[in-house]
């Protein structure tokens, strides 16, 4: 036992220090002397500050020479603007989904694909060998590819939230989608023959930027598509003049820009990935990749079906709008020839189809002709594609998915 504590219990020095700790904390009482001195014109300064103050040191500036200055993202930034810009990118989703996207893009929504596309898809006959190849492609994309990356999912056992399983390695979602798209398009090429195939071109990671004003608010969309299929001839537009009478949904009490981040630092620009000189520059089909680990709500709840469709719709709009601005200039309103863009969004092994027809970029008000979004079906490619007991298993293959993709590939709108 340490005896020092007991020995020093009555030690005067220690007691004094303990007492000082309590009594050494004092609240100064105002006796009016400061006010009196000030009234006499005498400057009052804190004594401790006066004693402790140091003469100002000369500023020593380091010459950084060629080293770049650190970028400061405030009002001194060269791209800072007073007007805020609402942005839509690859990782955004709209809070309200389709109704919000309708107001944002001045569009009406029609359930199901256009009748001519539906009829065209219905009449297609796919040989059995193509389906066999497709099954191989799916298995290759999901299981046999050599990529080994750490998977993002942090799985826990049900009922045991504190127990974490080790992270899995495997093919990343983006790689899986990319392989699936490229291999499916190759099957389409093989099946369609040289006559159709020569009219199509594929670009990967195409960037589209389009700024526009809606009800006076500045909006800029900056999106990429996983694969971008372009054609020599544009897809023929449907007659959608009847859309003039349709009303846009009422979002009250919400504003149509909700959940779109606002920025003061931005650069307004137009980007369309293909120059006009190139013979294949008409938009045909966009292939989009969706991953719940990359695309999230700000409040981190899962993305809904409507939000997923709206993402597809907005991206198709951005592609069509950037193409229209390239063709007709920045001040284009109602288009002479509407632009049609087909969209296929991959969410794992499920495919979501849609067709967007851009009729107008006159987005200042709700009057006049409107754009049209044909909200197609969402189909699973297969029910299961994984290793089971050490063997690769593909179960529940859905042949309709390839029929739809091939139908989109062949479609020219006639």
């Amino acid at each position, binding site marked *: 036992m340490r005896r020092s504590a007991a020995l020093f219990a009555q030690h*005067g020095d*220690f007691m*004094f*220090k303990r007492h*000082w*700790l309590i009594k*050494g*904390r*004092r*609240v*100064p009482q105002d006796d009016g002397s400061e006010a009196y001195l000030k009234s006499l014109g005498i400057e009052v300064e804190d004594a401790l500050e006066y*004693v*402790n103050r140091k003469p100002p040191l000369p500023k020593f500036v380091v010459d950084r020479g060629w080293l770049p200055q650190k970028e400061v993202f405030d009002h001194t930034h060269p791209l800072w603007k007073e007007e805020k810009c609402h942005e839509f990118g690859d990782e955004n989703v709209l*809070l309200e989904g389709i109704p919000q996207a309708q107001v944002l893009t001045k569009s009406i929504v029609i359930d199901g694909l256009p009748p001519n596309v539906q009829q065209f898809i219905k009449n297609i006959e796919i040989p059995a060998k193509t389906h066999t190849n497709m099954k191989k492609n799916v298995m290759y994309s999901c299981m046999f590819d050599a990529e080994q990356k750490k998977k993002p999912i942090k799985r826990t056992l049900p009922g045991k*939230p*504190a127990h974490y399983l080790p992270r899995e390695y495997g093919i990343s979602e983006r790689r899986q989608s990319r392989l699936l798209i490229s291999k499916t398009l190759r099957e389409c090429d093989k099946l369609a023959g040289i006559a159709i195939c020569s009219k199509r071109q594929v670009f990967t990671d195409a960037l589209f930027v389009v700024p526009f004003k809606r009800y006076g608010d500045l909006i800029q969309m900056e999106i990429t598509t996983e694969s971008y299929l372009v054609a020599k001839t544009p897809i023929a537009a449907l007659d959608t003049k009847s859309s003039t009478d349709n009303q846009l949904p009422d979002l*009250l*009490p*919400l*504003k149509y*820009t*909700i*959940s*779109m981040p606002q920025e003061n630092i931005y650069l307004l620009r137009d980007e369309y990935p293909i120059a006009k000189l190139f013979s294949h520059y008409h938009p045909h089909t966009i292939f989009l990749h969706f991953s719940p680990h990359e695309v999230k709500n*700000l*409040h*981190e*709840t899962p993305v809904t079906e409507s939000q997923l469709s709206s993402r597809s719709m907005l991206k198709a709009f951005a592609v069509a709008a950037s193409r229209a601005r390239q063709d007709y200039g920045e001040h284009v309103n109602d288009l002479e020839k509407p632009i049609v863009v087909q969209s296929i969004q991959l969410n794992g092994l499920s495919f979501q189809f849609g067709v967007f027809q851009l009729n107008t970029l006159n987005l200042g008000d709700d009057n006049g002709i409107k754009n049209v979004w044909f909200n197609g079906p969402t189909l699973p490619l297969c029910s299961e594609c994984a290793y089971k007991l050490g063997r690769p298993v593909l179960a529940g293959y859905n042949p309709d998915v390839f029929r739809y993709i091939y139908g989109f590939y062949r479609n020219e709108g006639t």
Partner: protein
Amino acid sequence: MASLVKLFQNCKISGLLTNSAKCIVVPERTIYKFIKKPSPGTGHAYRRIVHYPKEYTVKPLDVTNLAGRDPVTGRVVAKGIGGGIKHKFHWVVFTRDGPKEGPPQIERVIDVIFDGCRTAKVALVAVGDQLKYIIASENMKPGDIIKTSRFIPRIPVRANEGDAYPLGALPVNTKIHCLEKNPGHPYHMITAAGTYGTITRKFGEHVVVQIPSKIEIAFHQTCMATVGRVSNIEHGRTPVGSATRKRELGYRPRSGLWQRKTGKHGRKIRKPPPMRIAKPPGAPEPKAIRLTEPTLALKSNY
């Protein structure tokens, strides 16, 4: 006392000014190290620090768990806290601000979300292009329209669950929660899962509310309150179930010793205290000066 007088007699201000850099060097082993350890229950939480950004956001915020320790001194202040599943923090806006005149502001409930950092559920609410979290009421569900107003009409309003009105605008016997203690002061009562207060009567400019502990307190009639009961009413009836579950909730193991005087196992039934008027927020405490003593090595917070 005599030693104190002697000490002050020896103090000379002239010496202090001329030779300010001089200090007494004391061997370290003789320095008394006094550390001021805060006591729990004084308005500071020792479970976690939330890293708030400059601007409000609905993005769930990162936290640093403290395990009952004071972040300044690093000493254990609240025993029995530690471990558990780490949850992100949802920044709840307690102040329901509405127009003082005219029709009420209308908001829409987007989602009702589980929040691991509190017992009640939180509701994601949208109005205009703003999103915010509020404490969810018992029957709140996505798509609900809720109203907020600061106007006090002559006849009490017929409020629905989740609506926020001043106490003076609500009829007697209304169940309320998220009650503003003082008008404009950011402190709200009745926010735990399943709790509610009841408006019992009104007098003058005050409204009497029976709070969940059955005590009656009179609040000013302009204090905002939300109608209904706080969500997750099963919370009080749900047993923890197991020691593991207790650890998951962030509590450390403890002895099961029965302690007579803690009052944990029930209180003596007494008559509730008489109604009192809610205390207004106190003035900030005057800043004290710490007088130095060279041989005392004091931490900056002491």
